[in-house]
């Protein structure tokens, strides 16, 4: 008998004595928040959560975006981008003489090549105000998981309507089979005397621009 059959057989006999089905799952927790996506209270909550875990955050209008990207990247000399990132964002990232590399065009970057790049600029899929979480799914402007992981600085451009109030609202917007990364960063550890240190292996700086 294969191990698969052995384990499944053990489970079936373990459960054989059960005849009553378990009760249904009560779902009377909060699924939809009091405030609609992108509303001022949701943005305020999102900013509060981001600041709480020491991400840099700015709320801007669409016409301020290019300048804000350039400012956020002030100390960064080289930037990697997803091949399908909005050209306007790419142009803003290229200001001040920064070197741009596009992952996948012409070649997919190796981890070692990514390690030599200072920063990455991406969009996102959905964000959760209640927990300050930003989700990437490899969609337009987000690229492979590796490009948002290896560089030390991650700048995310969020649009107000992408920010929902609660976790269930965000889960409902996600496609489960895409590679998903949820970020409530920057990278942090509390392993030494429970003292929080920002930045271990992931990007040590997370910067977020919220476009209203």
């Amino acid at each position, binding site marked *: 008998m294969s*191990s698969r059959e*052995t*384990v*499944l057989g*053990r*489970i079936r*006999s*373990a*459960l054989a*004595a059960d005849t009553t089905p*378990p*009760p*249904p*799952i*009560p*779902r*009377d*927790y909060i699924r939809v928040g009091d405030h609609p996506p992108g509303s001022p209270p949701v943005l305020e909550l999102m900013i509060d*959560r981001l600041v*709480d*875990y020491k991400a840099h955050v700015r709320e801007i209008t669409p016409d301020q975006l290019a300048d804000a990207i350039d400012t956020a990247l002030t100390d960064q000399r080289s930037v990697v981008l997803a091949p399908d990132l909005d050209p306007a964002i790419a142009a803003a990232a290229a200001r001040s003489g920064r070197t741009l590399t596009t992952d996948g065009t012409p070649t997919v970057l190796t*981890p*070692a090549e990514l*390690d030599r790049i200072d920063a990455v600029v991406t969009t996102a899929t959905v964000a*959760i105000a*209640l*927990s*300050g*979480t930003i989700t990437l799914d*490899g969609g337009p402007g987000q690229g*492979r*998981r*590796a490009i948002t*992981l*290896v560089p030390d600085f991650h700048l995310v451009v969020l649009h107000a309507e992408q920010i929902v109030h609660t*976790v269930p609202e965000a*889960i409902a917007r996600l496609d*489960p*089979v895409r*590679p*998903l*990364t*949820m970020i*409530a*960063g*920057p*990278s*942090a*550890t*509390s*392993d*030494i*005397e*429970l003292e929080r*240190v920002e*930045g*271990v*292996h*992931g*990007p040590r700086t997370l910067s977020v621009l919220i476009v209203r």
Partner: protein
Amino acid sequence: MSTFLGIPRRHAAQEESPLRGALPFPKAARRELANDQLRRNLAHATSVIRSKRALVVDEMPDWEALRDAGAATKTQVMSNLPALLEQFEANVTARGGVVHWATDAQEANRIVTELVRAQGVDEVIKVKSMATQEIGLNEYLEDNGIAAVETDLAELIVQLGHDTPSHILVPAIHRNRTEVRDIFLAEMEDAPADLTDEPRRLAMAAREHLRRKFLASKVAISGTNFGIAETGTIGVVESEGNGRMCVTLPETLITVMGIEKILPTFTDLEVFLQLLPRSSTGERMNPYTSLWTGVTPGDGPQNFHLILLDNGRTNALADQVGRAALHCIRCSACLNVCPVYERTGGHAYGSVYPGPIGAVLTPQLTGMHGHHDVNSTLPYASSLCGACYDVCPVKIPIPDLLVELRGRAVDADRGRTIPGGWDAAMKAAAWIMSDPTRFAAAEKGLAAGRLVAGRDKKIKHLPFPGSAWTHTKDMPAPPKQTFRQWWKETHHE
């Protein structure tokens, strides 16, 4: 003060395993209690994490509703486990993953070793994982010439310190910053010579040390926090980014998953992604959560192997009372509130699963093989104060389960030919209390107890067999008069 009543009497040395220590809990606890540094570190760490958790839980108006949903989901998972596992396997396979089944630790270790060898490497990077610790994977790989590098900072501290983890979530909770610096200087070949004990500098030294390995490794090994049956999705939650590195950069990813980690639907994540981080690290959300489904062409590992692990879980499942222990999502909230854990630390439990949940889960996974088994002592490693139940995000009734397991440990002892101290004491008490004259005589003897007690009216040392009690607890001095004497004095008729 730790509390253990009715301690099993005889202990034989058991074979050491990640789920079974060398010493029974009372002896191991006594050893750990002698370490003042450990107690200081633990008291600090658990109080910090307790207050963080309380803050982020209190801000959730629907916390109890989330717990109810989490508990009910886990109950459903257990009763539908065969169908959910088959659905999960089919979805992982359909998305390009390869699913293996392992009945026990030995089989899981063998499968991992063969998969690593097939990639032609002798070093792998690892995400912190309880499942791989439970099966002793690192040691097995080492015996087979493969170095497994732990990439979680705390696991790295434990690994470099030739130590074992003492907490589910914060494995090096028993170490303070100075100890960590000393370990790094002694064991990390590329540690900076001027390393201080500042946590930030220590974390940066670990970053430098591991960076090269992340960028060059071909094979990574992980555990998992969730496996979604409906979609075949697997999730790992973490803070440092080492988990993302491992599940993203190497060509091959091998994930070991206990069969109880299944969730039925992707939607269920909306409950567990709220319960877990708040309960665990006291954060609203952990910094990084990675979710992947099989293989995504052009993104992440292109070979994905999933090992579904039994290793005693079906024993636990077959036990209708103990089954609830399998609901555990390894958040470690129960450790941080436990007065016994706070004083003894994790090593006293002898298992990779310490604290209240470990005291329940460990004997469920291994079975309790009578009073010779050190794991028969674990259900006594509790004051039954109930704090563990109050914080459990999936409402596992840990105190009830501990009482049930204690009953079984006692029952397993009933067949002994030589009566133990507990039985003898109970029989003697029954003989005395069944006769008023004998009882009155015994009461007179109580006065002697007042002589033994010190000025603080506490008896601290009794000769054997009373020493079995006074070794770990004080006994209050008997009152000046007995109830019957008091009654006689105050009721004259």
